Structures are given as structure tokens and as C-alpha cells.
């Protein structure tokens, strides 16, 4: 395996030694560019009490391009589609090498607290969100309960 850039080693060390509250990220044993991630739903959001699983991959071009991130836990959110793909500016055009894995994960956590139905990825969800926000929020809570809250 090719040697891992210093930057990735440093970021990984810090993620482990100084974790972000409510977020975990650990590299997989056989691929140090591939991380298992969990994000706790923000407390004042429909995703509260949920623990969402994600996967993150640092392409060869990182940090000149953004990490690739996807939700593995089903989630009802206007900016996250059925396959867990995320619509977030810092993962696309607004990526900058000054950003890091931890800042990206914080942005995703913030996105859970502030859904943006005007810039949708999941069109049907965004539509429902705009038509009846209260109902959409209650569906998001149901899904959180059903898919993201551990039952034990």
C-alpha cells in the first residue's frame, strides 16, 4: 500500500485523541483512507437521539478535493437522498484544502440541524418539507426512531 500522506495521519490521530463531541470517525484496518463515521443527531432537531452511520473516503487527490461521504443509515432529510448522498456546498464547489475531515463532519451535523429544502437533493422530500413542514418534521422523527435509535 502506498504511504499515507502526513496530513491524513495527523488528521486521523487528532480525530482519535481529541474527538469532536457527538461525532466518531475511525479508519478501517485494511484501508486507512476509508473511515467508519457516526454522527449524533443535534438535540433540538428531528434527528435528536439518533446515531447515524456514515462512510467517508479520502480520494488520492485529497486534500485538493473534498472527502467523499455518504449516510448508511436511512434518513428523511431534503438534502440527503435515498442512497445517503449528501448535498452540501463544502463537499462540492466550496471545498477548500483548509477544511478537514472534522470540519466536514461538523458541517454535516449542522446540516441535520438546519435542513435546506430550497437546495434539495431528494426532490420528493424537499417538496413535502415545503408543503407541510410540521408533517415533514414528524416523518423525520419517525424515521430517526425507526432506523437511527439503537433498540437495546
Amino acid at each position, binding site marked *: 500500500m502506498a504511504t499515507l500522506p502526513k496530513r491524513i495521519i495527523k488528521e486521523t490521530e487528532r480525530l482519535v485523541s481529541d474527538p469532536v463531541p457527538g461525532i466518531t470517525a475511525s479508519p478501517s484496518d485494511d*484501508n486507512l483512507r476509508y473511515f467508519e463515521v457516526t454522527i449524533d443527531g443535534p438535540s433540538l432537531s428531528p434527528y435528536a437521539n439518533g446515531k447515524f452511520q456514515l*462512510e467517508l*473516503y479520502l480520494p488520492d487527490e485529497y486534500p485538493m478535493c473534498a472527502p467523499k461521504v*455518504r449516510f448508511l443509515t436511512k434518513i428523511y432529510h431534503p438534502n440527503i437522498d435515498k442512497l445517503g448522498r449528501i448535498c452540501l456546498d463544502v463537499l462540492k464547489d466550496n471545498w477548500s484544502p483548509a477544511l478537514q475531515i472534522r470540519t466536514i463532519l461538523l458541517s454535516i451535523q449542522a446540516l441535520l440541524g438546519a435542513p435546506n429544502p430550497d437546495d434539495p437533493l431528494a426532490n420528493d422530500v424537499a417538496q413535502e418539507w415545503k408543503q407541510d413542514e410540521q408533517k415533514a418534521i414528524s416523518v423525520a422523527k419517525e424515521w430517526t426512531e425507526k432506523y437511527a435509535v439503537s433498540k437495546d
Partner: protein
Amino acid sequence: MSKVPRNFKLLEELEKGEKGLGAESISYGLANQDDITMTYWNGTILGPPHSNHENRIYSLTIICDETYPDKPPKVRFTTKINLPCVDSEGHVIISNFETLKNWKRSYTMETVLLELRKSMALATNKKLPQPVENSTY
């Protein structure tokens, strides 16, 4: 080059298929739009010209299980076809099809579909008698 994990490789392939960036003679997409595991896919191949396959459209199913792309996908024609690398139920026989037999991690579903199309156009295959058009297994 680092190893792109299965899910991110499949997401790349999906995006290419969704945007229609690939070859025009083939297409592919998820069988079920909310299959978060991205295991079951559908493919189509437009029969190559100057062959008995000309103007025919072949449908296939492709299964990318947990071992993909370290191992090749499982490919099956649902439209009936007469080809040496396809068995009597439509399954592509790995040992008879070079692309699956000598599988490389860099290959994609697009590679498989394009190579199958090439095999339909081979001098030894292009005039093989074919089943009634659009009959299925």
C-alpha cells in the same frame, strides 16, 4: 493509487450511468432506486450493427455483491441470446468470458457490457442463429 472502497466505486459508476456520460450503445442503473447497498443493477446492450443482433435491445441483470470490485459481478441476460459465453439460462459463464475470467479491479459494469457487445460482433459470433426477438428466459 489507493483502493477505492466498493460503495464509493459503485457511486461513481452510478453517477456516470445517471448522467449518461458513458458509451451510447449500453446503459445501466440500479434495479431499485433506494437500494442503499447498491447490489442489484439492470443493464441494456444495443446489438452491434452488421450482425444478427442489429437493432435488438438486450436486457441484463448485474449483481455486485460484497466482494465487488475485488471479484467480478454476476451477469445474466434476461433477453434470450445465443452466444458461446452465455448458458441456457442466460448466465454469462465466467470461464468463457475473458473480462470476468481475468477480472481487474479497475473494470466497471460498463466494461462488462461493452465487452459483451464486442463479443456479439466477433466474426465467429455475429452470424450465429438467434432466438425470436425479445423472448426472455
